[in-house]
């Protein structure tokens, strides 16, 4: 039912901070889109622009092809869930849920029906007569979500709704919000700085940094082909290994590491180019595990730190002055200071332009 379009949106605050820079982005009808980025990158600001809580400096925002730049928040038919819940402390849960409907002059019976419906969905039926103060963090969060769903808005905006919850509750609520999305079939925009949340919940993910949208993709593509160095480094934990160097005769030459280029890159990079080579820790294998790889490059390095994670080992290696890390199977026999031969899976290499940071 609802489709959100941002066109060349800028937000420049009075103190000259640019929180959104030429943001162009489309959220499809019924899509669950996650925006992720480091703290201060402008996620909240852009969300608040859609909500109408901040005015645009430049650009256009459409909901269902209607320009909403000048429409006040209450008439945009959106609902927002805040990180700090933002419940009205002096109202009971019931009043909190009913407030927006009351303002819209809905009938008493309709309000009651919708409040109870929302409370049922979220399992907060027993809490309706409590004040927010008497609720746990998780319960408050449910009420905050409930306040959004009673409205039955075209678009849901979530601003880091789970970041104040403890880890266990966060996982649980994550699943519930995803379920809610499929149940309500509404358009949702979900802001987080937690890439795990982003990867597990988002149908598509927009990565934002310094007010600029870096890449919009489905989670898998984002992981497998990050558009630039920032995305490569931000998505994935532990982060991707990166090496500075250049391409010479189809071989990557770094300070300490040389890796030959796979078939796909050959021919494209004949002249010498300054590049950054990226490879994810799980794409570097222990040679003794005898991985079957069509294209590979062997690097001998020294183990500096060994972190046993139980189901795997994080191995921090060093070759010369160049550190990198790999995730290997827990069976790997290695102790600190030993040298080990590891294999780079060449089909999983990422190359970035050193100047622009963009993917080659």
């Amino acid at each position, binding site marked *: 039912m609802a489709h959100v379009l941002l*066109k*060349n949106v800028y937000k420049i605050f*009075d103190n000259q901070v640019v929180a959104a820079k030429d943001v162009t982005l489309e959220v499809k009808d019924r899509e669950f889109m996650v925006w992720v980025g480091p703290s201060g990158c402008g996620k909240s600001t852009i969300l608040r622009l859609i909500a109408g809580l901040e*005015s*645009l*400096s*430049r*650009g*256009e925002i459409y909901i269902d092809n209607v320009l909403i*730049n*000048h429409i*006040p928040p209450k008439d945009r038919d959106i609902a927002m869930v805040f990180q700090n819940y933002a419940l009205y402390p002096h109202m009971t849960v019931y009043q909190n849920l009913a407030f927006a409907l009351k303002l819209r002059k809905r009938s008493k019976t309709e309000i009651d029906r919708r409040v109870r419906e929302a409370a049922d969905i979220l399992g907060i039926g027993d809490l309706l007569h409590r004040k927010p103060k008497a609720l746990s963090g998780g319960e408050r969060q449910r009420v905050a979500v409930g306040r959004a769903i009673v409205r039955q808005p075209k678009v849901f905006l979530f601003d880091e709704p789970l970041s104040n919850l403890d880890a266990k509750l966060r996982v649980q609520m994550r699943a519930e919000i995803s379920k809610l999305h499929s149940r309500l079939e509404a358009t949702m925009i979900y802001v987080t700085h937690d890439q795990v949340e982003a990867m597990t919940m988002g149908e598509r993910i927009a990565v934002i940094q310094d007010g600029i949208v870096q890449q919009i993709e489905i989670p898998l593509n984002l992981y497998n082909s990050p558009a630039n160095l920032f995305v490569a480094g931000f998505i994935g934990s532990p982060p991707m290994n990166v090496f500075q160097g250049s391409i010479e005769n189809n071989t990557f030459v770094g300070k300490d590491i040389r890796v030959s280029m796979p078939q796909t890159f050959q021919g494209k990079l004949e002249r010498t180019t300054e590049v950054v080579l990226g490879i994810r820790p799980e794409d570097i294998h222990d040679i003794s595990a005898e991985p079957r790889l069509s294209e590979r490059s062997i690097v001998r390095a020294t183990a500096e730190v060994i972190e046993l994670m139980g189901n795997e080992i994080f191995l921090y290696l060093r070759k010369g002055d160049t550190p990198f890390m790999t995730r290997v199977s827990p069976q790997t026999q290695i102790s600190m200071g030993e040298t080990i031969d590891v294999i780079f899976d060449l089909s999983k290499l990422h190359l970035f332009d050193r100047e622009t940071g963009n993917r080659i």
Partner: protein
Amino acid sequence: MEQRTPIQTEKEKGDRAGYLFVLPYIIFFLVFTAYPLIFSFILVFHRWNIVGPMQWIGLGNFATLLHDPLFWKSLWNTARFLIIHIPLQIAVALVLAEILNQHIRFRGFFRAAFFLPVVISGVVVTILWQQLYSTDTGLINLSLSKLGLSRVPWLTSTTLAMPSIAIMATWKNVGFYVVLFLAGLQSVPRNLYEVAELDGASKIQQFLKITIPVINPVVVLVVILSTINGFSLFIEPYVMTSGGPLNSTLSTFLYIYKEAFSFYKMGYAASMGFVLAAVILSVVLVQRKIVETDTYT
């Protein structure tokens, strides 16, 4: 390049609400602050009895004022009031606050008791004290004569009347300053005293060397507030003595009031108001210089 909408500054909905919300204040300010302020500048150069036309006399009002013995007397009276009132008030307030700051029971009750005269109308307090001070029938003099002492002409002697008023004003206001001091005292870190105790400082020394410097900002505040309040001394002499005997309790503000609203010398009264304001400002500035230390800044 894509086509761009022009830059919009924050002049949208929020702006309009903002202006709407401050509009009442702006009107209020223009009518009840700006206008009187400007008009007072005009008024001081005129002779005016509010009914007839205004008559330009240049600096005439200030010239009159310079040679008006009553104006100077009233300033002197106000000064006499302040000289007694401020130190007395600070001393009493500090002592009471220090006592309240100990571990005592019923602190709330005592605090409320000291504070009681603060909330009661000055009119009541004055009528009451007029009775207590009364030479022949007053409670104080009755008690004194019962003790075999002679009666004191509290309000009928030109030398004593103003000090009597100052004592009464202290009684009325001191509770307020007790509360201010108490808040100040409670902000003094306990461990400062513990250290001093180890160094062998006596209680008195601790009070002078630790308490007073730490609460210096409160002292400054109290001095300034009681000065400003003292310069508007009005209802007490108005009700109690009408400025007598022999104008010995005529405060500057009471004098201004009489000139303006008994004799309708608007221009002259306004000029005196100006001079009085200037005096207040200078006194406060001087006090700040003297009282304010920067031990803890």
